[in-house]
């Protein structure tokens, strides 16, 4: 007697709210953007399906491609600074915080995390003020310790501006890797650490040989979060340098490039179709990065159960 299973409606009913909300807020806009990038306006301002012509323009037209590659290279540098400074410093801070001998660790933890919850408007503006050669306190402070000669208008020089902004962003967000790594370090059982103590694996060698391998999965997660966050970054640059991402586009990243193109800025007219094209390219870059992480890196990282 083959009895048919009843349709399990409750699964559909319980999934529906999440699926509907996610579809309305994420899937529809995503496909809307992808779709928009395939259209453009002709001379008579009528919408026209152009296939991949917008992408040909973006990558082929020297004016567009120059700006795009500049933004991409800047963005890559922005990401690299985070990977080389923010994450190692975050790990180091977490390692120090988890040391049982450190006093006031709750205070340090909070103090380091606070910039993360500050608005980017405040962060951008405050750092602009600090670093300003005219009314900033940085020149005065350097002068006080006799290092005035080291001062430069960091945000105003093409060669320094992007790195300076990246470091400001590092200052703001270093609390996140710190917290994640701190949590990962706390999840290592005390007895494993004590066994290492008994085995003579102490201090830094304990960190390298025992703790670091056990927190690698968390470091992987942090790397991918940093990647996605950096390639979507926009706000700090916009607040500190404006949509033109000066000086001379030295701090222009994909986010600001997209903003200028999509909405227009000063004399430049907004072009939703080219904007959508850039957004699609950004989506593709992030997708490739995330896939690379998921398939090439995460599958090789072991997660440990204690």
């Amino acid at each position: 007697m083959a009895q048919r299973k009843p349709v399990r409606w409750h699964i559909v009913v319980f999934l529906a709210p999440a699926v509907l909300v996610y579809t309305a807020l994420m899937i529809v806009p995503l496909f809307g953007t992808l779709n928009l990038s395939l259209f453009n306006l002709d001379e008579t301002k009528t919408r026209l399906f152009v296939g991949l012509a917008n992408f040909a323009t973006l990558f082929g037209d020297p004016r567009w491609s120059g700006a795009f590659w500049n933004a991409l290279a800047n963005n890559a540098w922005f990401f690299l600074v985070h990977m080389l400074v923010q994450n190692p410093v975050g790990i180091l801070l977490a390692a120090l915080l988890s040391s049982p001998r450190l006093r006031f660790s709750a205070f340090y933890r909070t103090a380091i995390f606070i910039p993360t919850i500050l608005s980017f408007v405040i962060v951008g503006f405050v750092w602009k003020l600090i670093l300003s050669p005219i009314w900033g306190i940085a020149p005065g402070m350097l002068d006080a310790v006799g290092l005035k000669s080291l001062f430069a208008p960091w945000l105003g020089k093409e060669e320094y501006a992007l790195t300076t902004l990246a470091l400001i962003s590092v200052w703001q967000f270093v609390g996140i890797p710190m917290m994640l790594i701190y949590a990962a370090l706390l999840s290592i059982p005390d007895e494993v650490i004590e066994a290492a103590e008994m085995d003579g694996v102490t201090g830094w060698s304990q960190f390298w040989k025992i703790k670091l391998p056990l927190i690698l999965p968390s470091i992987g997660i942090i790397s991918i979060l940093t990647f996605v966050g950096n390639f979507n970054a926009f706000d700090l640059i916009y607040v500190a340098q404006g949509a033109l991402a000066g000086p001379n586009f030295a701090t222009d990243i994909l986010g600001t490039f997209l903003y200028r193109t999509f909405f227009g800025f000063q004399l430049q007219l907004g072009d939703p179709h080219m904007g959508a094209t850039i957004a699609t390219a950004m989506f593709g870059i992030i997708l490739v990065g995330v896939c690379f992480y998921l398939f090439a890196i995460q599958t090789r990282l072991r997660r440990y159960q204690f």
Partner: protein
Amino acid sequence: MGTLNLTKVTKSFGATDVIKGVDLTVNDGEFCVFVGPSGCGKSTLLRMIAGLEDVSSGDVMIDGRRVNDVAPAKREIAMVFQSYALYPHLTVRDNMGLALKQAGVPKAEIAQATDKAAAMLSLDALMERRPAELSGGQRQRVAIGRAIVRRPKLFLFDEPLSNLDAALRVQTRIEIARLHRDLGATMIYVTHDQVEAMTLADRIVVLRAGRVEQVGAPMELYNNPANTFVAGFIGSPQMNFLNGEALGLRAATVGVRPEHLTLDRGAGKLVAKVSHLEKLGGETLVYVVNPTHGLITIRLFGEHEFAVDEEISLNYDENKLFFFDEDGQRLY
């Protein structure tokens, strides 16, 4: 070599005194078991010996050297933890070899030492696995292997069997006893299970609330307990404590072991009602209730049948009684 001396050792966590002055000598090659109820400070005492916990006052000496301020790794001690505490990211081989590698021992020697330990514990086939791929019993053997490889002066075990099932516990217990004979090393073993203590120990240290209640060989503690605590803790099922005055004896409390009570149809010294029966095949435990003495356990050899609420009468041999004063100290 591996002699341990504790002199007036104490430990306080803030205002709470956990270890309240312990004096103890563990001789070279001895198997010493710390036993006591949960929370009495066994682990703390063991961790103080290991160096994982600072000593508040007193001296810890290993082979005559004061080691209070010596780092754990420098004390030549190995410890086996209750949770095994294996390194999850290392293979069995690397788990066992890490201490030697850290000490800069040549690779060939490490391989030789780990192979030898693996052979002793029949871990040969598992050497390239990681802890996650092992069963509980195998993990425990790896943890023991990790301790052996270092050739320590002193082995410390903190309730190593409590995460294993009953059959495996017996098997591993035998294995540890054999290991002790083969290595001839000094071992200190912590447990709350008096059966483990009785079966493994050369000498048992009974602890209560941070104090040593009695030290002695298992049969010494069984036949000659110093107070009601030790008398009740050693031996299973627990010793019965009867009211001495009600029995017309010159002691506040009289102890009699369940195996020393006999049934006497009609003419016993005590009358009681059967309240519960546990038939274990080889032996039968009869729980009876007497209005003045409370619950009394009787251990009978072989199979017996009683009805609940049946009245039975008990007898005991006066020579097998233990007499205690009001404070629970042994009189004679």
